[in-house]
């Protein structure tokens, strides 16, 4: 085991995959400036700075991916993806299908988002569900350094466009990463904590929120199971349904806004496929339908907190379930 931050885990995954496959390269605004270890090892042809023009960065990645390279592009902050929507959604996401399968797009788009730095709504917008709704794309949003490393490796090896969202607040959080860790498959959730009474489904930084809530609930005898989705598409439906079949209660927690968010999909999934297992209504704890504010107290109020998760669970669990 070695301890590293999320940012270092991403670089470590890039370095390992670039050693394995000479077609892997990375470019973006400041990539060569900031990831100087990669620049030193792999040179200026494979590690490139770009103009800060997200559209052409993403389009260049799509064109390169379709013709033999495996580009990784860093578009910095998730709201900047708006400038690259056409290239990600209309080109990388659709041209395989439109062409009758003539092309594939093995590319990775990196973007940061989430509360924690007070950067405000044009740098912080959890817009991951937009891309879940777009065909042809895969979406991952891990919560630990080990998962960032393992999922980045899978994202780079995948033959489809994969968006990797990195929660800003997690960027400098450290965690243990196995030195010889292999790729973690896309579409597999992780059960972070096993429990019998309620299922807490989350991803990215609010997984930690759910873990904190589970500890608080345990003190009062409520046994929560915490599922970290890690991938939003493909979605690990089995992991969710298996857990709800056991607990009969579901709270979905994410920072993104509620309307048409990932939580809505999970609630609908459980209603369709596990209705008879439910012993209480499904609840969602999410950010509001508002841009993310910069002011620290407002920014924190935007994000579901552990106390709110505890209160939501208590409203569902009149008494702890008996084994």
């Amino acid at each position, binding site marked *: 085991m070695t301890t590293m931050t999320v940012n270092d885990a991403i670089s470590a995954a890039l370095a390992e995959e670039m050693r394995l496959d000479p077609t892997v390269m990375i470019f973006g605004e400041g990539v060569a400036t900031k990831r100087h270890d990669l620049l030193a090892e792999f040179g200026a042809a494979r590690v490139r700075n770009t103009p800060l023009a997200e559209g052409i960065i993403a389009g260049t990645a799509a064109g390169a991916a379709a013709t033999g390279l495996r580009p990784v592009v860093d578009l910095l902050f998730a709201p900047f993806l708006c400038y690259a929507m056409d290239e990600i959604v*209309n080109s990388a996401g659709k041209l395989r299908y439109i062409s009758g399968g003539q092309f594939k797009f093995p590319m990775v788009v990196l973007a940061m988002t989430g509360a924690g730095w007070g950067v405000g709504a044009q740098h912080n917008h959890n817009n991951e569900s937009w891309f879940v709704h777009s065909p042809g794309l895969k979406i991952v949003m891990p919560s630990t350094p080990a998962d960032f490393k393992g999922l980045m490796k899978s994202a780079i090896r995948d033959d489809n466009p994969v968006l990797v969202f990195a929660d800003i607040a997690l960027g400098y959080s450290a965690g243990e990463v196995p030195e010889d860790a292999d790729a973690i498959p896309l579409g597999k959730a992780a059960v972070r904590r096993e429990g019998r009474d309620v299922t807490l489904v989350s991803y990215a930084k609010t997984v930690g929120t759910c873990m904190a809530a589970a500890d608080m609930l345990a003190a009062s005898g409520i046994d929560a199971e915490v599922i970290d989705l890690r991938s939003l598409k493909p979605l690990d439906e089995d992991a969710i349904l298996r857990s709800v079949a056991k607990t009969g209660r579901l709270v979905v927690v994410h920072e993104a806004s509620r309307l048409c968010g990932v939580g809505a999909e999970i609630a609908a999934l459980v209603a369709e496929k596990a209705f008879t297992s439910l012993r209480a209504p499904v609840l969602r704890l999410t950010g509001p339908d508002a841009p993310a504010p910069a002011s620290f107290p407002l920014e924190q109020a935007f994000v579901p907190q552990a106390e709110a998760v505890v209160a939501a669970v208590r409203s569902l669990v009149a008494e702890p379930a008996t084994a």
Partner: protein
Amino acid sequence: MTIRPLDPVQALERMMLIRAYEETLIDLHGRGRAAGTCTSVGQEAPAVGVVSALTADDLILTNHRSAGHLLARGADPGRMLAEVMGKQDGYCGGKSGSLHISAKELGVVLTSTIVGGELALATGVGLSRTMLNKPGIVACFFGDGAATEGRFQESLNLAAVWKLPILYVCENNQWQAFVHRKETMLADGIAGQAAALGVESAVVDGNDPLAMFDAASTAIDTIRRTGKPFLLEAMTYRLRGHFEPDDQGYVDKAELAHWRDRDPILCLRARLEREGSLTAEAVAAIEARVRATMEAATAFADASPYPGLDALTTDVYA
């Protein structure tokens, strides 16, 4: 690299095939058998001139007005018609329709109908040529409308900075969907923007396939020698509407008449007849071959089945 000279009679025949293909589609649409299309009528010369100057290693990106580029590259008009009609034997299995036909086997890749989309993808295709040491260059066809998109500047800038082997070909057909380019830009053309980005450019008579071929050959030679991008602006005219059907009621009649007099097919034919290199019999023979080709193509497309409904969700993911 030496490029074979363009045989003007062969160029004429290829342009006539493109015209006949478009007229076939207009006819099929009129009879309710094909969707409306964005035709390349009037723009045959840049397609035949530029594509004839490319080698088999070179790749082509095009747009919604792509029939000329595909047919100039040797695409099968039967498979193109089948694609427009949504049939299984189309180049994209019927999932593209007319607007984004790619034919990877011919090096026509990543056709995008998003105006300017091809400009954003071309840099990536150029990048893979250089990173993978591939011999070919990339020809990217777009219009004056796409040049008003920000991606035009972004693409040329990155291609210049990264020294990408891209031949940008702007077919300035004077129309941006239903708006004349005089309403959307002050300059008569877009080539003037290239110099500011460090990209060499040339403006060519886009109704003369031989001039297009010569200019493209020179530009391609420059790209192969320097590794840098080059912009050709072909001054031409969209003789029909944005898409079929379109009564062109918004088009200035005198302007349309002026450009109809400059119809690239009629002009080349008259020139070759004047020079004595084309007889009336030869023209009749070309017309007969083109007619037979399009009849066979239509029969092929008619006979092709629609895709099975399982195709609805195939090829979404690799």
